[in-house]
């Protein structure tokens, strides 16, 4: 609207004359025009004159009522004024009546300290609650899982295989590639350190031990914590936002049985398999480095790998189901914690990944200590 008439207001004989376009696009002009009026004459106004007003929208009407109280607008005579303007003014005035926003509380000395104290208590109780929730959830999931194991007719086979496909098989390429690269890096590192002692041949042992005992399972678990825990949280969280979880509950279906147990079993099944993939591909990474830059032959490499005691493989593999449970349970629990909005889905997804990775590494450290003390 290029030909917009500027809004204007004048007071003559206790009557407020309005001219032009009173629109939200002219909001600043409307305010300036009203502020320019004399406050004593504003207070004495008895009548509105709107015949020369082109249009007024609710935003401008609201601004007008910052200067003339809505009650006064309602009590003014409206008989011979254009009906459409008056109807709008009255609608806004009625809306504003008795709808005063609560005045903000004035700042008091000590508010800052109070706020700090509040934050600390909140954080602390929040932490306790979180732990509590996690333990409850673990118990609940364990109960359901144990119950379902003995009832084959309640196995969610389709759901299980869908998740095996999504979070298991689809993860193979990335797991293999990543561990291959780390295997090569470890081999280079070993070669650099060991060559000073003329013991480059031990690079092979280094790679094999590292991947069997620690890196295979740890890297896989960290990858799945990033890849799968987040997707579990987002899936369940979006369902929560959409009230799908509530819909399941009122239909007498158990969300834990339907959503959590298949995901848990999927990871319990897939994480050990992916760990094997990781171990093999990590060792192949080492092999490539050994063959191409350390002059160790392929047969020599495999002979050394074969001599590694098999118990190191088990030490690595037993951790896989534990990590799987951690990832699945944290991922699902965070999904259930989502509160009905999009931001909450994001927050809980982040939180799921951070917690899962943290706990995986923590457990791995504890396990390493334990196995070392046991001399395994």
């Amino acid at each position, binding site marked *: 609207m290029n030909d917009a008439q500027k809004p204007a207001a004048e007071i003559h004989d206790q009557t407020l004359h309005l001219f032009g376009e009173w*629109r*939200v*696009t002219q*909001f600043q002009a409307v305010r300036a025009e009203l502020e320019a009026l004399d406050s004593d004459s504003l207070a004495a106004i008895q009548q509105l004159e709107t015949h020369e007003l082109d*249009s*007024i*929208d*609710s*935003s401008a009407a*609201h601004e007008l009522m910052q200067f003339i109280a809505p009650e006064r607008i309602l009590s003014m005579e409206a008989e011979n004024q254009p*009906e*459409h*303007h008056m*109807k*709008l003014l009255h*609608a*806004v005035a009625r*809306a*504003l009546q008795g*709808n005063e*926003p609560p005045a903000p509380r004035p700042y008091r000395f000590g508010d800052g300290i109070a706020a700090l104290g509040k934050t600390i208590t909140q954080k602390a109780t929040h932490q306790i609650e979180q732990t509590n929730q996690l333990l409850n959830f673990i118990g609940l999931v364990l109960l359901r899982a144990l119950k379902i194991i003995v009832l084959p007719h309640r196995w969610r086979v389709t759901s299980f295989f869908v998740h095996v496909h999504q979070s298991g098989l689809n993860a193979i390429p990335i797991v293999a590639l990543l561990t291959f690269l780390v295997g090569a890096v470890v081999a280079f590192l070993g070669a650099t350190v060991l060559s000073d002692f003329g013991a480059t041949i031990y690079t092979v042992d280094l790679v094999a031990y590292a991947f069997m005992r620690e890196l295979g399972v740890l890297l896989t678990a960290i990858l799945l914590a990033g890849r799968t825990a987040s997707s579990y949280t987002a899936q369940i969280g979006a369902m929560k*936002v959409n009230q799908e979880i509530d819909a399941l509950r009122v239909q007498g279906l158990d969300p834990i049985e339907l959503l959590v147990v298949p995901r848990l079993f999927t990871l319990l099944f897939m994480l050990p398999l992916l760990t094997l993939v990781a171990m093999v591909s990590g060792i192949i990474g080492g092999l490539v480095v050994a063959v191409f830059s350390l002059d160790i032959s392929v047969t020599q490499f495999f002979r050394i790998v074969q001599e590694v005691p098999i118990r190191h493989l088990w030490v690595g593999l037993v951790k896989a189901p534990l990590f799987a449970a951690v990832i699945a349970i944290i991922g699902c629990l965070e999904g259930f914690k989502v*509160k*009905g*909005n*999009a*931001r909450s889905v994001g927050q809980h997804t982040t939180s799921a990944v951070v917690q899962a990775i943290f706990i995986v590494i923590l457990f791995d450290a504890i396990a390493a200590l334990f196995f070392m003390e046991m001399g395994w």
Partner: protein
Amino acid sequence: MRESVIEIRGLRNQFGHHVVHDQLDLTLPRGEILGVVGGSGAGKSVLLRSIVGLQKPASGHIEVLGIDVQKASSRERLALERRTGVLFQSGALFSSMTVVENVAMPLIEHEHLRKSDALELARMKLALVGLPGHAGDLQPAELSGGMVKRAALARSLALEPELLFLDEPTAGLDPIGAAAFDELIVTLRDALGLTVFLVTHDLDTLYQACDRIAVIGEKKILIHDTLSQVASFDHPWVHDYFHGPRGRQAAAVGQQRRSL
């Protein structure tokens, strides 16, 4: 003939093989409140989405406020969006903001108002659509179904648009709220010359607020005319719609109120 705000010629919409609209024509003159009716799944929401540019039609020509929606440059499109308000069927409030912030956001983004001014205007808008004062500070997830509708209406009115698209605004409102809504729409139209494209199943709204009715069926507009013409149109669905038990009831009430 008044200038037309929406011009649709030969519109065709399809999802895969499922044709929703075929050779659909519609003209909406300025200042008119058009009620769009049709069975569930007849394609009312899809028509609305294609007019506001969210759904790319398979073929056809759509002009809104003199701008060709499909060929519009991004600047023209922005200007268009600035002048139109849309109320989605499901509300579509931004879930990470409070209700007032939802309403204030377009004012801050487009009109560059100060935040305090925008929030104040937003509170007025919420009151105008009949939300109690405390509702403004709630998150959208904490609202009841009808309150979501009202808040979404307040947001669609935030920029004082010339053209308003409403997808089932009174669904989920109590009858008193729905009647107040009808009155509000007419008030705004009278005051600001608003043009309204209103999808509804609510017969009372058709009788109280709409100037003309367009019936969608069989992939096109079956009839687009005044209420009395549409009600006497000879088509089984239209007949059942206006002369079924609910239709008769609403017609009786409508007549009564008009004669008052």
